[in-house]
């Protein structure tokens, strides 16, 4: 079982090296002649006015919460899908009930216009 996580381990190591290596190489090789324009956060962009840490709209939080709910729901789908050939019709009905409950919540969100952007 552990061996099957070997590729995952290699992936994680490569993913860690991949962004670090160009950054290190860049800081070693690239010539450094900074001036005021180059040191701006976005070259050829607009300079920010005021603090950048502003308060976001509460709306975003609602989307995050709904995302978490459906993420947890999706987690339950995986073991069910793997074992489906053993479970048969009974498993299908059980998962149907499970999803039906969540569809009620989804219908509520829809009805309350929680998914609409004003």
């Amino acid at each position: 079982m552990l061996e099957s996580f070997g590729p995952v381990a290699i992936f994680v190591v490569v993913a860690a090296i991949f962004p670090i290596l160009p950054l290190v190489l860049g800081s070693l090789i690239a010539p450094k002649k900074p001036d005021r324009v180059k040191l701006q956060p976005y070259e050829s962009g607009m300079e920010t006015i005021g603090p950048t840490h502003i308060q976001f709209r509460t709306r975003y939080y609602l989307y995050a919460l709904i995302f978490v709910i459906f993420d947890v729901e999706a987690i339950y789908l995986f073991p069910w899908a793997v074992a489906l050939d053993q479970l048969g019709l009974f498993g299908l009905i059980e998962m149907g009930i499970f999803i039906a409950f969540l569809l009620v919540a989804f219908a509520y969100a829809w009805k309350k216009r929680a998914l609409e952007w004003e």
Partner: protein
Amino acid sequence: MAATDVFVAIVFYLVAATMILAGASMVLARNMVRSALWLVLTLAGVAVMYVLLSADFLAVAQILVYVGAIMILMLFAIMLTPNQVDLPSAAPQAQRISAALTALAVFGISVFVMLSHRWNVRAVPLDAPSSERLGVLLMSTYVLPFEIASLLLTAGMIGAIVIAREE
């Protein structure tokens, strides 16, 4: 077999050290966004621990739910907080002392439970994918908790909408 054990031990201690460092950085970081990102690293380390314990499904769930969803929720919550992103450099003296005492008490209780409880240890390590067995158990023995979990999620979502709608 011995080579695998050595490899597992190396990974365990590397990840454990990373988790402790990330956890300490999370507590010490002045910027709350950085603090949250350190927590991501700590939670990812927990996923590696699950892999080492042969709990493959739990590891993936940890990544998807905690590292993915919960941390997004936390970052959103930080972004919604007005002008509180940088913590004050000094808390009141009384608050510091009570915080230290609370942390010490939690640490003490955790260590006590870890050392005093007689943990069940499997003689033979579980060495098979767990998803399929979990799926069968969820749909047979634990079908009631499974359906109740669905109700709980529904209630959570409706509650979230009710609270968040009132802007």
